[in-house]
């Protein structure tokens, strides 16, 4: 029986209808590495929010550009790298909402970045030559 590979990449169009497949692929990969289900659900949700954020905020002229999601197993952590062509938006520098105030305000949107930065251990962002790279690490 072949060993589970330590690296996996999903290339997907900017369509929220394709995100089920992304979630399933990430979850299957992590289950193949016997990762705790609680950790898997945090990674699954963070990847989802990162990609939804790209899709919902990208310019119409970028809609044909694909998004790359790479999942890499390291010694004691999982590294997720999300790469896309687009404008510079550093979500690691965005102000996080006070969730009690957010809850009381009744706002429907604006929690995706909070999800990512709360559920993952480290989040790094870079933007070079119109390529945005988001690296998210979860300890296992």
């Amino acid at each position: 029986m072949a060993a589970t590979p330590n690296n996996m990449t999903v290339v997907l169009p900017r369509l929220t209808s394709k995100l089920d497949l992304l979630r399933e692929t990430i979850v299957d990969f992590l289950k193949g590495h016997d990762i705790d289900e609680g950790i898997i659900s945090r990674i699954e949700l963070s990847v989802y929010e990162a990609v939804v954020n790209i899709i919902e905020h990208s310019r119409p002229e970028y809609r044909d550009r694909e998004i790359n999601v790479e999942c890499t197993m390291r010694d004691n952590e999982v590294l997720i790298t999300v790469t896309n062509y687009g404008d510079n938006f550093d979500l690691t520098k965005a102000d996080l909402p006070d969730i009690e105030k957010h809850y009381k305000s009744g706002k429907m949107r604006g929690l995706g970045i909070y999800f990512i930065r709360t559920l993952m251990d480290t989040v790094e962002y870079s933007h070079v030559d119109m390529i945005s790279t988001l690296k998210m690490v979860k300890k296992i």
Partner: protein
Amino acid sequence: MAVFQYSSTKHGGVTVIHIGGSLDAETSPKFDSKIKGEIDKGARKIVCNMAHLDYIASAGLGVLIAANDILSKQGGEIRLSAMNEKIKKIFKLLGFIRLFKLFESDQKAIDSFKGL
């Protein structure tokens, strides 16, 4: 395509909705439309049973927050029931467990509305 299930029943003055499947960016608009439909029809006390909810993204949570805000301005509220462990862990990690009122069962959530 993500699967989302929704049903609702009346228990006296309390509307109990059961949601299941995936509540994400694709399915949240449907949930938003359904729950606002309940409010438009006069529902003020809503119990949301989450026993069969497998996944909730920020878009889904946003629908609950927004609907609760509409209800609170009309003297009502959404209370959550039968949340499974997977969803409960996410609510805990994100801090929403202390903001929504959670109950073990629909009946306990329904009873909690007595006097409101």
